[in-house]
């Protein structure tokens, strides 16, 4: 699944980037490397972009970017420590 389709409130792990060139470089530099866990937290009332927590920072990405980020959704499991 692509990051675009990650439901709000859930977390996903980056599997790979399908972007090329400059876009790929930019996404990597933001910390979107395979294995990184991201959380979709809110969507703009105008429908796009969507804000994600990426390595501790809230970043808004347009669908033009998130369509090139493959993620696997992590099953919702409450962390006992933080419950």
């Amino acid at each position, binding site marked *: 699944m692509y990051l675009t389709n990650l439901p709000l409130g859930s977390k996903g792990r980056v599997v790979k980037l399908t972007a090329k060139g*400059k876009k790929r*470089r*930019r996404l990597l*530099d*933001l*910390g979107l490397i395979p294995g990184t866990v991201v959380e979709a937290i809110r969507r703009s009332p105008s429908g796009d972009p969507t804000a994600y927590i990426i*390595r*501790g*920072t809230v970043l808004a990405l347009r669908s033009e970017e998130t369509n090139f980020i493959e993620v696997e959704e992590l099953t919702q499991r409450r962390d006992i420590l933080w419950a």
Partner: protein
Amino acid sequence: MGLTARSSGLNLLRENFNIDYSKKNPIIALAGNPNTGKSTVFNGLTGLRQHTGNWPGKTVTQAQGNFRYQGQEFTLIDLPGTYSLLANSTEERIARDFICFARPDATIVVADATNLERNLNLVLQVTELTDNVILCLNLMDEAERKNIKIDVAGLKNDLQIPVVPTVARDGKGLKELKNTVYDIVNKNIVVHPYRVKYSPEIENAVEELVQELRTMLTGIEKYINLHWLSLRLLEGDKTIMRSIKDLFLKDDSFETKTEGVVQTDGVNYI
């Protein structure tokens, strides 16, 4: 006259960045991620003794200011806020080129204490370029509020650079920061930062390339860390070569004569 012969090269290079070097102040660069309170640190250090201009040839605002400590005056250059130095944007290229070529006497990296990991990414990139790095751990009050505890001594030990916790809005820690700058500039402390260890396949490739560079570019080693340059070449970053061309090979005395070479060497510096 070549790269090796340019003993006054450093000052000339600094002038390339619109730095007023007439006073011979030590040059201190201020780097950091966006939203880390970098400009608060800048204002806190320089007060009203600052002015803004442009980075040469670019419509990106450059702020510089002065501060005094122990009777010595320092010039502080505020670099654009960036997440990385891998030259994906004009801002990143400016920050990278400044640290790489203007060779500041010390570089302060302002980091958000509430989000250390992302900020360390930049710190580790800066320490690849220059030894004299100070980590300014800002927003310590926010970190405390969020129950984030940072082992400053441990961090210092792992990064092998001075780490100064600050709350720049309240002016906390700024004196300590100035003191550390003073110590580094006056060689009271000598810094040898921890460097990122890359995966074997990369280190091997770099190794090979460094050998090549060493034999082929005899002059440039003085100015640029060859290990770092090899990494940039490996990842296909052409902007670094463009910067080298712009800065080193642009000197009025031989600009016109070398022009032909630029056109015929067949390299596309884009």
